[in-house]
């Protein structure tokens, strides 16, 4: 027994020493790239970028890391990495404002990102920390067969939308597929309504909210959230809190639900062609027209301010967009919209092409909780919006009270920053 224990101790010690000594020095500059691993963008895809870059610049070694589990949000995980001194050199980034106060991010130079369609998007105090790599649009996916069978038209006004829901409900078809169990999928509908009723009328609303000249509890947002609540309560089935994102997709793609308010990444599901009907798409209509489009442009690549190789990192970011083949692979997985000046063609499904044509000329507003740059929500409030506010409203709580609470949360978060 004693011998076994001694042996065990020795093994543990040796293992420990190996782990410590494993950081062998090489002549190569090594950068760590923290990526967002998704079903459409598996680790193999990200590794292919690293490999391509290492082939292009052999003096650099790129290591890929990602969230440790599909249930961990990579953007939160990056905070853990920063807090424990493991901050990566290059990383996918969603909430730069959470990191900027601690000085963790390196600014891009003026003009450095000129290859992007809008290099100014999401600047914080006039400084750019993120190279925006994708645009996603939010809309309503619908079952064309159900619409045709019931003589329904794509609604052009909010009232028409309600009429469609009412008609479907009368036929005992679930009008809208929504669930709040995962915490985020319900915000798509809420965002679109906040877009049509608030942001479209007041494009600088987010900046004004940060300046404290406006409140969440205002007539326009109350109206938008009451619409959202009405739809959740009347047309989304009876068990919102038990429905996950996958179940939402299942309800829609098996033909149980007629409409799915969701981001354009659903095109990737449509592309699998497992459904037995044709899928259509329309933007959520406002009171008078259907001309406002909510988009997400809140994600891109950022560089750590602590990196030993800032030039390599910047070159790597540039390479990400410059290698057309890899960038189009990136876009193709989720059928995204490119953000570079030069168009990046890839194999699109017909619905995705249709969306691109349909949205031309629409007024674009940013997804409400994902507004970027100086309009961005304070740390934590994005999560409050998804995990608290929109859930509470969906289950029937009083809208004005909930928005008041949101304003209070805002004040607390603001105070915590000082």
């Amino acid at each position, binding site marked *: 027994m004693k011998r076994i224990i001694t042996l065990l101790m020795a093994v543990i010690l040796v293992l420990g020493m190996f782990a410590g000594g494993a950081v062998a020095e090489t002549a190569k500059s090594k950068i760590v790239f923290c990526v967002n691993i998704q079903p459409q963008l598996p680790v193999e895809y990200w590794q292919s970028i690293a490999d391509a870059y290492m082939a292009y610049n052999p003096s650099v070694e790129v290591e890929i890391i990602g969230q440790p589990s599909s249930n961990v949000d990579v953007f939160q995980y990056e905070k853990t990495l920063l807090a424990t001194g493991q901050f990566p050199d290059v990383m996918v980034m969603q909430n730069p404002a959470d990191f900027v106060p601690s000085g963790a991010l390196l600014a891009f130079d003026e003009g450095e990102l000129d290859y992007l369609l809008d290099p100014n998007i999401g600047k914080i105090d006039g400084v750019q920390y993120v190279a925006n790599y994708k645009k996603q649009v939010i809309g309503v996916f619908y079952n064309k067969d159900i619409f045709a069978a019931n003589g329904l038209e794509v609604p052009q006004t909010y009232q028409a939308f309600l009429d469609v829901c009412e008609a479907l409900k009368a036929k005992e078809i679930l009008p809208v597929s929504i669930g709040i169990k995962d915490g985020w999928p319900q915000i798509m509908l809420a965002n679109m309504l906040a877009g049509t009723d608030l942001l479209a009328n007041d494009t600088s609303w987010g900046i004004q909210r940060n300046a404290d000249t406006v409140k969440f509890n205002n007539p326009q947002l109350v109206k938008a959230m009451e619409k959202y609540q009405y739809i959740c309560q009347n047309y989304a089935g009876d068990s*919102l809190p*038990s429905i996950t994102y996958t179940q939402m997709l299942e309800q829609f793609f098996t033909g149980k639900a007629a409409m799915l308010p969701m981001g354009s990444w659903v095109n990737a599901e449509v592309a699998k062609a497992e459904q037995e009907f044709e899928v259509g798409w329309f933007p959520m209509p406002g009171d008078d027209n259907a001309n406002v489009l909510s988009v997400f442009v809140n994600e891109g690549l950022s560089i750590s301010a602590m990196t030993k190789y800032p030039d390599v990192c910047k070159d790597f970011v540039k390479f990400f967009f410059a290698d057309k083949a890899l960038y189009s692979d990136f876009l193709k997985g989720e059928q995204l919209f490119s953000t570079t000046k030069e168009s990046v063609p890839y194999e699109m499904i017909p619905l995705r092409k249709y969306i691109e044509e349909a949205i031309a000329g629409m007024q674009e507003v940013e997804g409400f909780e994902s507004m970027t740059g100086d309009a961005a929500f304070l740390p934590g409030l994005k999560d409050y919006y998804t*995990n608290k506010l929109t*859930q509470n409203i969906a289950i029937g709580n009083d809208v004005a009270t909930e928005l008041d609470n949101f304003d209070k949360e805002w004040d607390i*978060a603001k105070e*915590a920053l000082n």
Partner: protein
Amino acid sequence: MKHNKLYDTLFLAPGFLVYIIFMIIPVIMCFLYSFTNWDGISASFRFIGLKNFVNLFQDASFFQALKVTLIIMVLTTLIYNILGIILAALLNDTGKLLGFSRSAIFIPTVLSAVVVAFIWSYVMQTNGGVINAIIEMFGGTKVDFYATPMTTIFMISGIICWNSLGFFVVIYISTLTTIPQEIYEACKVDGAGWFYRFFHITLPLLAPGITINCILSVAGGLKQYDHVKVITGGGPGGATQTVTLFGVEKAFEYNRRGYSSAAIIILFIIIVIFSIVQLAISKKHEVEY
């Protein structure tokens, strides 16, 4: 007899060293952070006195989390101990059937919170869930376990209990086996019935087991994280958030490590108070035999 202090130290030191590094120091750090405005990621922070604690006492969502935590703690403690004692009293006997039942009741205990949460979210689904399928089979109307925050908390507590009840039953059985059989025999000769024996012998003599089980179940209920995390994630709208989830959310979503630490310290103090009170009560009631 003299003991070699050097050997004592050699026996004690390795264990206590890792314990101090990975348990005690983090707690001290958490305690220190609770008096700062640290965001969890910046290099610098300030000491702000008791401000985090003052803010916590004005934070409705903290009280909500505290309430949920206490409800889960009370429900699970009651179920563990009441059902645990009854089952232990019934199972504490020989025979193949009872042996099988003992194993059966203990098996869920070895399953992970993740596994348990996935099995039960299937069973409890509103549409297509097994329980509702059974209810509908007998012509009832289906139940939405997620209907209100309260029903959801009850559901979560039930699932937690299913997962760990076996542990408490086993501890009760082991305490029961330490009760000398002669006492029962003497009682049977006196013609006392099962219920009389249960309330007048079994229960008082179970006191040491009750103490341990209560401390463990109270501490476990108050520390609850895994099941809630996987079953509801604290939703809908934070209605099922426990203090530990609240702490994690404040630290990693709101960048408020100081505030989060203060919440955890309060939880820790509550656990300590409960444990001390329980020990004091049990000291009074324990019976020597």
